[in-house]
């Protein structure tokens, strides 16, 4: 925004007052919003999700002390750039899981985070790995509410039988990511 806002955010970070830092990032799928707490990456907003609503959700669910502070996102932005350039298969970012519901939903997401680059599993497999083999619908809901898409690769979870299924950013984006990974 302005030099003043940058200086304010820098001082806020130094004084421990910056609970959520965010930045935007241009990517081949459109503009992403990336946000981090002091624990790690907490949210990625896909292009279909307006910045305002992503920030409002962070204010409500994490802390209203939300400021634009790209420096805290330097590493995340670098790794995402590399991923989209085909030069990175694995993210080494600390993740803050607090925006996913504890319990089954979070287990589904944690298991999904282990699915390697270029591989796919089905919703049933995700449910089984999270400990409830028959809860494949709930697994779909958990993946649909993934607060950190791309880095927690919910796009690698697809329907049995060849249909790639839904995606927060739309099925075209899911297909794009899977093709980027040579998974299709």
């Amino acid at each position, binding site marked *: *925004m*302005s030099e*003043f*806002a940058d*200086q*304010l955010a820098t*001082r*806020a970070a130094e*004084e421990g*007052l910056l609970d*959520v830092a*965010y930045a935007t990032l241009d990517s081949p799928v459109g503009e992403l919003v990336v946000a981090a707490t002091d624990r790690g990456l907490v949210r990625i907003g896909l292009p279909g999700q307006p910045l*305002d609503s992503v*920030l*409002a959700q*962070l*204010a*409500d*669910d*994490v*802390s*209203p*002390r*939300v*400021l*634009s502070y790209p420096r805290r996102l330097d590493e995340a932005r670098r790794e995402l750039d590399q991923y989209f350039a085909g030069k990175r298969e694995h993210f080494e970012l600390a993740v803050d899981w607090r925006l996913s519901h504890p319990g089954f939903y979070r287990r589904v997401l944690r298991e999904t985070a282990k699915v390697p680059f270029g591989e796919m599993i089905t919703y049933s497999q995700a449910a089984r790995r999270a400990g409830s083999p028959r809860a494949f619908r709930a697994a779909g809901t958990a993946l649909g509410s993934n607060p950190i898409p791309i880095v927690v690769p919910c796009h690698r979870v697809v329907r049995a039988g060849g249909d790639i299924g839904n995606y927060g950013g739309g099925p075209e984006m899911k297909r794009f990511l899977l093709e980027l990974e040579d998974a299709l």
Partner: protein
Amino acid sequence: MHEGLPPFQVFLEEHLDPVRAFLRGMVGPNDADDCLQETFIAALRAYPRAHGGNLRAWVFTIARRKAIDHQRSRSRRAQPVGDVEPLVDRARSSPPADAAGVGMSPRHSEIWAAVAELPPGQRAAVVLRFAVDLRYRDVGEALGTSEEGARRNVHEGLKKLRRSAAELKEMTT
């Protein structure tokens, strides 16, 4: 958890310009940016406990406190040391050449100087009414007075400013 409070970034973007205008009127253009940072850092610190209802009045209350603190520390420093000119003298001297004064005519700096001489309550009310363009009701809310009190403060302040303007005219003609 904090329903009702906008993200701080949104709050900042909405209130930055009016608060800057207010502080320029309160402490002068040269010191306004320091006070501005102090104001928004204090606001950020207290933000999770703020009430979403009237954030504008809330941030002006903080800004006014910072402006008063600033003037106190300035006058404490100015007297014994003597090398920090009071705002009034500096503003009254020839047109300011530093960056903060760019674009300000001599006439403007005379107005600043006269505003700076007003008692804090009147000065805050005059600045909020005319530099920030708030309605009297909002001036009152920001300063913790009634709408009537705000009107009175502005009225008294303007009366003094008119007197200074008249004196100024006598001096220059």
